[in-house]
């Protein structure tokens, strides 16, 4: 890792962590959602630093673009938008559980970093190429075809379910 990318790594990491913290501490749903968008953006910067520009672009496209737009849309339609209109939706029990889970995950990461446990190489090394989509597509449609198809069936089920639920509400 060259010096320049090291600085960028720290920049994007700080942005990610800061935005994530702001996301869980904001009370209004709309500001929280916007901080989440910011988190997604900073994360995609980290992916690009990892030489995975495709994942970075898809991260913005799918999370920051599509899902967050729908999320903000729903929040606005349900008129939950304004902080102060209603008390915090999360009870004290929920906050405590979330805190404990977060601390446990952090401890796990630190332990893995400290100890001699060698993390297995999850990403197969690939040669650098000008076509960044081809390696992903190659794996997706050969080695991981079953997982890919199952995921699409899950998504299709969710889609059909959403349509059925929406239909029932208008009929009633």
């Amino acid at each position, binding site marked *: 890792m060259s010096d320049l990318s090291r600085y960028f790594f720290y920049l994007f990491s700080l942005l990610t962590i800061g935005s994530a913290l702001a996301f869980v501490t904001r009370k209004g749903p*709309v*500001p929280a959602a*916007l901080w989440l*968008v910011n988190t997604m953006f900073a994360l995609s910067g980290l992916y690009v630093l990892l030489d995975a*520009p*495709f994942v*970075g*672009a*898809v991260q*913005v*496209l799918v999370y*920051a*673009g*599509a899902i967050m*737009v*729908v999320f*903000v*849309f729903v929040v*606005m*339609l349900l008129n939950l*938008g*304004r902080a102060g209109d209603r008390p915090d939706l999360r009870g004290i029990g929920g906050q405590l559980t979330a805190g404990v889970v977060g601390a446990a995950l952090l401890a796990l990461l630190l332990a893995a970093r400290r100890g001699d446990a060698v993390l297995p190489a999850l990403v197969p090394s690939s040669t650098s190429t*000008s*076509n*960044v*989509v081809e390696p992903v597509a190659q794996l997706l449609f050969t080695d991981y075809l079953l997982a890919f198809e199952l995921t699409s069936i899950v998504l299709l089920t969710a889609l059909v379910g959403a349509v059925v639920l929406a239909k029932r509400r208008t009929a009633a």
Partner: protein
Amino acid sequence: MLLMQDVASLFPTGDPQGPLADGPFVVAAIIKILVFFVAYLVTVALMTLAERKISAWIQDRRGPNRTGPFGLLQPVADGIKNFIKESTKPGEAEGLLFRIAPALAFMPAMVTWAVIPFAAPLPTPWGLVDMSIANLPVGFLFMLAISSIGVYGLVLAGWASNNKYALLGGLRSSAQMVSYEIAMGMSTIPVLLLAGNVSLSAIIQQQQAQGWNVLLLTISWILFVIAGFAETNRLPFDLPEAESELVAGYHTEYSGMAYAMFPLAEYANMITVSALATTLFLGGWDVPFTSWDNTGPWTVLKTLVTFAAFAAKLGVALFSFVWIRWTLPRFRYDQLMALGWKVMLPLALAYIVIIAAFTLALEAAGLRNSIAFSAALFALNVVLLFICSRVLDRGRLISPASPRARLAEVERLRERSAVARRYGGNPSRQREVDTTPAGVA
């Protein structure tokens, strides 16, 4: 002395046709960003004038002609006026979001330009300078990703204003943009199928080799242009700011320069979508009918000529944007949604399947990189266009305001006009004949 040498060693001169070293690369990037920034803002300002001039021309008026020669200083006058107006903020508005929403509306349009190649590479003493700000390997996805966040500015402006008309405008814009973004993304998949890559320079190379995509993938192009109009909130898709229904839509509560940012963002988006249409379908900076500009060795002349070609195509696209705005009326909301989801999306999906199957068949026949490949695709498009023009007529695409005329009614009207024709096309005479009591004439 040492410092001078250090600086000089950062900028080694090299082969004009070779790649840049790190130092010149960074400097070239900064220069490109600055030049682009100024040129873009000037173009946006001039577009506001061009719109008024062209609309005046279409409506047989003169348009702005008092400020400078041909009204050329009108954008400057508008800008000064907007800057000295008070920028108000409603008491119940959400402070920070209300202020940054105009900027959020403007910025994505500008950021998309980072990946658009606008000319052939320029040779310099330090090496070959790419004529795009960042030649990303994922340029196409970058463009889709950035355009998908363009909606935040409008939605947040609508929400933060705390005004029902503004909120409705914001909701409309988010629904519209999410719907048409899908159609837009799907319409460009055939381009990727032909190019086999997601970098915009590869897409331009493919068009230089095989011919422009507007001929090879005509239906994609049509879908892309329609979706582009919807993405920029231009007429006939400007429902988020429909004056007759929503006062001014999402920017109802804005004034001064904060307000002006929204129309400016619209023009900025127009320029960006035009540039994308140019790059994806009109060959980018390719000069038609010659292959002189397609390969090295690169010269300054080639850069200038290809830039002129790109600018000319961009200009044509921008002119059609204005032209269509002053020609077509606004859609109704249900028509807009029906068109996006029930017509454009299925059509785009079907087209992907057809193009993929056709390309596969041609490849199996061993015709991948030949003139026959382009000719076959063009012929396929002519056939598909004919079918589409037969099947998708206006009455089927969008539900009309009144029910369609019954066949008997049409027959009756035809009968009347036939009678009118018989009496020399003079309706008053026909009426005389009609009212004459039977048996007298």
